[in-house]
């Protein structure tokens, strides 16, 4: 296939003026035609909705009524005085921290292990990535069973070890831990592979030098590897943060997918921001204006956190 055009006789048609015009058009204009589908479709179904969210958020806008009254910042004012919003923000941050920090540290250590000359490299890599294949819904359902109060395997193990049973869903801290475990289980292996790829790109000589200086394996990891792959670490931190701020399926299904799922437990102990958005936007009354204010606030939070990440890294870089 690759050389099919070569096998044929050269096109004998000498470019006449019309042909030449077509040739020039093809050469200079067609590239824009090839990248256009991406930009057009992304603008239509990605960028435009996100930008239009800001406009909707300034209105009293509901699917059920045709009138959209401009209310200025009223939705935002209501949002910032709603205790449930702050509750959801705190829950989201807590779950994010619990899920991301241990996960990325574990991924770093595991990637370090995988840089050794192991038997069964492919097997270990496949095994690491296996949890990532399961959908968030599957993960949430499986772990909701494992974390069950009465018949869950985890409570049974805890009891057998002499620790008491935990009603994982009931408590704020315990439910956050359970949800963080779901997120970490799905993504640790994925991040491990990303770190492994970055580590393999570090020149061997750097390690040789560190070894001659008598650095052990662990100090090699933290003194040599981590500084060398810092851009990758920053990338994973930002991506995990953006993902973590939008956690939805895990808490929704952990709460049982019904009314208790939408509120993140009966006393909203694990309602995240996206669940709060969903509750207002699609679960009761289609309050699109208010839900858009939630979305745009989340967007602002994401931008601020990304900027903080960037500044932090810049500072570390300039100080070292």
């Amino acid at each position, binding site marked *: 296939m690759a050389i099919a055009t070569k096998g044929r006789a050269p096109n004998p048609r000498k470019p006449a003026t019309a042909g030449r015009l077509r040739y020039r058009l093809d050469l200079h204009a067609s590239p824009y035609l090839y990248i256009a589908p991406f930009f057009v479709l992304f603008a239509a179904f990605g960028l435009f909705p996100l930008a239009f*969210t800001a406009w909707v958020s300034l209105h009293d806008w509901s699917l059920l009524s045709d009138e959209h009254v401009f209310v200025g910042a009223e939705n935002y004012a209501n949002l910032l005085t709603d205790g449930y919003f702050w509750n959801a923000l705190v829950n989201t941050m807590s779950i994010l921290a619990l899920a991301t920090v241990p996960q990325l540290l574990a991924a770093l250590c595991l990637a370090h292990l995988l840089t050794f000359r192991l038997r069964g490299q492919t097997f270990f890599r496949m095994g690491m990535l296996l949890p990532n294949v399961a959908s968030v819904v599957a993960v949430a359902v499986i772990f909701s069973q494992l974390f069950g109060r009465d018949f869950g395997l985890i409570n049974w193990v805890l009891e057998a070890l002499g620790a008491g049973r935990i009603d994982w869903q009931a408590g704020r801290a315990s439910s956050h831990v359970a949800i963080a475990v779901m997120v970490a289980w799905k993504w640790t292996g994925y991040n491990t592979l990303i770190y492994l790829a970055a580590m393999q790109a570090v020149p061997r000589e750097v390690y040789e030098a560190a070894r001659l200086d008598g650095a052990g394996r662990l100090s090699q990891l933290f003194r040599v590897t981590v500084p060398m792959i810092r851009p990758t670490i920053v990338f994973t931190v930002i991506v995990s943060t953006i993902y973590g701020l939008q956690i939805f399926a895990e808490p929704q299904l952990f709460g049982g997918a019904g009314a208790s799922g939408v509120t993140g437990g009966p006393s909203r102990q694990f309602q995240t921001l996206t669940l709060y958005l969903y509750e207002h936007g699609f679960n009761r009354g289609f309050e699109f204006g208010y839900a858009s204010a939630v979305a745009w606030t989340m967007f602002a939070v994401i931008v601020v956190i990304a900027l903080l990440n960037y500044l932090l890294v810049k500072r570390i870089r300039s100080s070292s």
Partner: protein
Amino acid sequence: MTSIPSARKRRAHLRLMRNRPGRLAYLTLVAVMFFSGFPLYYSLVVASKDNSALAQVPPPVLPGANLVENVGRVFDTVPFDFALLNSAIVSLSVTASVVFFSTLAGFAFAKLEFRASKALLVAVVATMMVPVQLGVIPLYMLMVELHLTDTLWAVVAPGLVNAFGVFFMTQYLRGAMPGDLIEAARMDGASTFRIFWQVVFPVARPAAVVLGVLTFLTAWNDYFWPLIVLSSPEKYTVQVALSSLSGGYVTDYSLVLTATMLATLPLLAVFALLGKYMIAGIMQGAVKG
């Protein structure tokens, strides 16, 4: 092994020894493998039991004999056959579209010269950071306007292109596509699109497989948007059908986890066949990204 190794060989050997993992490393990795695999295995155990068996102390750890019965119950409770079909339609359309448009754009960015191409590529990369999920409300309003709510079109539309795909194919074609081949085809009078179709696409095939697998997986597992835009059970994708099963006051776990197994098995099959490519794709994307 009886010959005396030269000093150089010995040094190389020592280096290997240092790089060789101890027993602890293997133990750690085996433990990680156990924790990776166990939840999936355990859902098979639950899926093959009836609910009374799950209430036993100690809980069961070996598969039982009720799998077929549970599968029957899943299909009686929700139209899971529709759900599997809907998910297949959505995922395959999204995959075909993403692979085609990404390769097309990647070819333009990697091999064609045009004004502002660098700036446009930067724009593509920047869009990867945009949390488009936050635009669901206007997206939903858009689908209402187009009369597409509760249709598979609405599910497919936002997935038709993605920035990662364009970036991934650009990087691949930059390295893998010889410029001479394109020039030669041009000399033969082939149009740019014909060059794309007959010369570039075959070269891009290995990367297209990787991108295809990753895209298929993401599309199959998508949940938030389908949940919002689909309302009738016969339109549900697998993930939405799965979550509809786990509602209610008391969750019927053997039913839900049987459905989970049914939803996950196609992916496990894909993973067993093409997992190596996925790993390669993730690792390539990491180094270049």
